[in-house]
Each structure stands twice: as C-alpha cells, then as structure tokens.
C-alpha cells in the first residue's frame, strides 16, 4: 500500500536540508499538489469566520491560496516560500488575492500591523525545534498585541490515517509524494503494441518525491508556542493534525 516514509537524518545545515527536502520539492510538485488542496479544514474556516469584518491578516505558507478567499470580508496577504505554489495561488486567485514569495522566518511585513494570522501545515517543515519556535515567534511579531495566530502541524499520532504514524515512531521523516508526470497522449489509431509500450512508459514516469516533516507529538505545539512567547487560548486535534490558537501578549 503506497510508498513508505523514510527516516530523516539531517546531516546538512537546517537551511540546506529544508532547501533540498522542502523548497525544491514543493516547486516541483506544486501543480499536482495544488490540485489536491481545495477543501478548507473546518477549524480554519471557523477561525477566519470569527475575525471581525475588515480585519487584516496574514496567511504564512499559503500554498495555493485556498484560505485566502474563505472570508471575503477580510483583507489577507498570503505568502509562501515556493514560487511554484504562489503561481498556483495566482491562477486560483481570480485576481482577488494579495500574494508574495517570502520566507516564513523573514517576512516582509511591519511588526504589529496585522490583526490575525494563520499558518496551516507549514511549521512542521522547519527542521530544528529552534527554527520551529522562531517561526511562531516571528509570525506573532507581525500581529498586534491581543491578535491571534492559528497554527496547524502534522501529528505523530495518526494511527488511523493512511500513513499510520503513531506514538513512539521517529518524528523527523521524509514523506513520499508520488508525482504522476503526464506523458504525451497516443495518437488515435495507434496499434496495441504502441499502447502497451506507452503504459510502460507511464510507469517509468511515476516519480516519488520526498518532503521533510517534523511530526508533532501531543503537547509539543503548545510547548513551542509558549517558548515563542505566546499564550495558547485554544488547541486541539483535527484530521491528523495538532492545532493551536496562539495570542500575542
């Protein structure tokens, strides 16, 4: 059943590790990845729905921009480290989103300017605890005191999921993404032998890409949030992810 995950042992400096196992991969799989990301998660939808009309916010690691249009009464700036994903967001945008390419640890925004922020399935891609905490601290710095940040991270405890990660497993993993590269369509009237060889060719064109994840165990996200200087006002588990709403104080 599918391609297994691999343990990730970071030998390179964190930035290089993330370049190889996160940024490069997303740029490569972006269009395919984007097709699979269209349904907003309920807690995120609720969080965005609860923001006061005309609030301004950030979506750090916005991917294909699926959360940027959820609440039309908000003004949001979506950023992502992957130009490939921002290209997808731009195509989905209908010229309504505000987008930029930026690093989550070097956001191009004034401190304290925004009312809220979200960072959905992003912080688990930073490869050291220090960088994960820094990322939360950095996003918090961009919102005003009293403003809230919603963070989602992939959980280690997801025994029922397809991947089957569970307590006690390695937390730093390379997760496969099977990329189906499109091959040229056969010409009409091509004979059977040609079709067969094309099928074989298609198999060859299936390529597995690995993305680095740090799988969060229970309580870890809260611990990171506190170390980042935030106050956790709500937290929980949804669809194989730990989430927390963190207030800037």
């Amino acid at each position: 059943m599918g391609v297994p995950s691999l343990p990730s042992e970071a030998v390179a400096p964190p930035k290089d590790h993330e370049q190889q196992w996160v940024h490069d991969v997303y740029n490569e799989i972006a269009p395919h990845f984007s097709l699979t990301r269209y349904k907003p998660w309920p807690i995120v939808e609720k969080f965005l729905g609860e923001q006061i009309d005309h609030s301004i916010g950030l979506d750090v690691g916005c991917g294909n921009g699926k959360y940027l249009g959820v609440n039309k009464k908000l003004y949001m700036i979506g950023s992502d480290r992957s130009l490939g994903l921002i290209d997808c967001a731009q195509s989905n945008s209908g010229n309504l989103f505000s987008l930029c390419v930026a690093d989550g640890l070097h956001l191009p925004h004034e401190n304290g300017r925004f009312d809220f922020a979200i960072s959905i399935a992003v912080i688990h891609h930073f490869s050291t605890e220090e960088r994960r905490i820094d990322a939360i601290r950095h996003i918090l710095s961009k919102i005003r005191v009293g403003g809230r940040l919603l963070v989602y991270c992939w959980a280690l405890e997801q025994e029922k999921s397809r991947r089957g990660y569970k307590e006690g497993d390695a937390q730093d993993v390379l997760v496969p993404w099977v990329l189906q590269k499109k091959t040229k369509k056969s010409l009409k009237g091509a004979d059977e032998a040609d079709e067969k060889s094309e099928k074989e060719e298609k198999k060859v064109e299936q390529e597995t890409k690995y993305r680095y994840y740090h799988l969060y165990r229970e309580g870890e996200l809260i611990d990171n949030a506190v170390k980042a200087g935030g106050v956790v006002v709500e937290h929980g588990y949804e669809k194989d992810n730990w989430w927390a709403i963190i207030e800037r104080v």
Partner: protein
Amino acid sequence: MRTAVPAVPQYIIWRDERKISNRNTPPTTQTQTQIAHKKYNTRNMKFITTNFVKCAVKTCDSSVDAFPLQYSDCQIVQEELEYNPEFIVHMLERLEWNAVVKVARDLGNESLPPVKPEGLDPIMEDDQVILRDLHTLLVETQIVEGKMVCRNCEHIYFIKNSIPNFLLPPHLC
C-alpha cells in the same frame, strides 16, 4: 473631524485612456514608469499591497527607511475591477497614508493630498467620487514588473509576473 477634500479627483494614477479618456492625468515622470497595454491573464500585485510590505532583512526591522520600499522601473496596468466602497472605506482606516503618497510618487503621481481623507461616506455623492478614485488607485492599479528597493540597506527585490519576491540571498538571512 473631516478633512477638507477638493472636489476634483486627486487620486488618479494614469487612468488608462481606454478606460476613461476625459480624465487622464499623465504621469509627471514618464521616464521611470511605463504603462503597459499588454493583456495579462492573471495579475496580483495591487497598489494596496505596497502598503503592507517592507524590507525582509532583519537588521532593517528597526529602521524607518525600510517601509515603504522604493518602487522603480515599474510596469503598471489598470483594469476595471469590482468596486466595493465599503472595503475602501475600511481599508483607508488601516493604510499608512504617508506610504501611499510616497509609493504613488515613485510611480509618477504627485497629486495625492498629504493628509489622509477621513470620514468618507459612500452615500455622499462627493465622497463617492473620491472613493471611486481611491478604488482606481488602490485596487485597479497593478504592478506587473518592477523593482522594490529598501531605502535603508538598498537591497533590491523584484516583481515578476505581478508577484513580488522577498526571498533573500544566503548572506542576508
């Protein structure tokens, strides 16, 4: 308190002659900015975005010169987009007006009033005109290509295909 606002529209930047021909205010510095008449499929970087982005370099965090960025060699397009007066009224409250004026000047428009217009009401006819013009400036004016330069560290960021890119070279992050 309401600021006195002239009845004549002050907020127009290069109203595209294809859109409105009788109120076209030509840019004062044509050298820096060119109006693109090319059709683009997707655009994104609206003028309003310039009010929410600054230099990404850590050491520029405390510098007042890191925001707004200085815009140069910009290609601008204007296209008609849905007018939402309520959005403009509320966004106006959150805009750094000095930055609006500065960036407009970078792009060749010197006609913005130095003080932010306040208390605009979409029901009032005079205010409608101003809100429309603000809509043209903030939403319909889009930067397709260009450079953004930090006035503090002088780092240059690029806008390509209407997407501003703030990734830093290794020595700056």
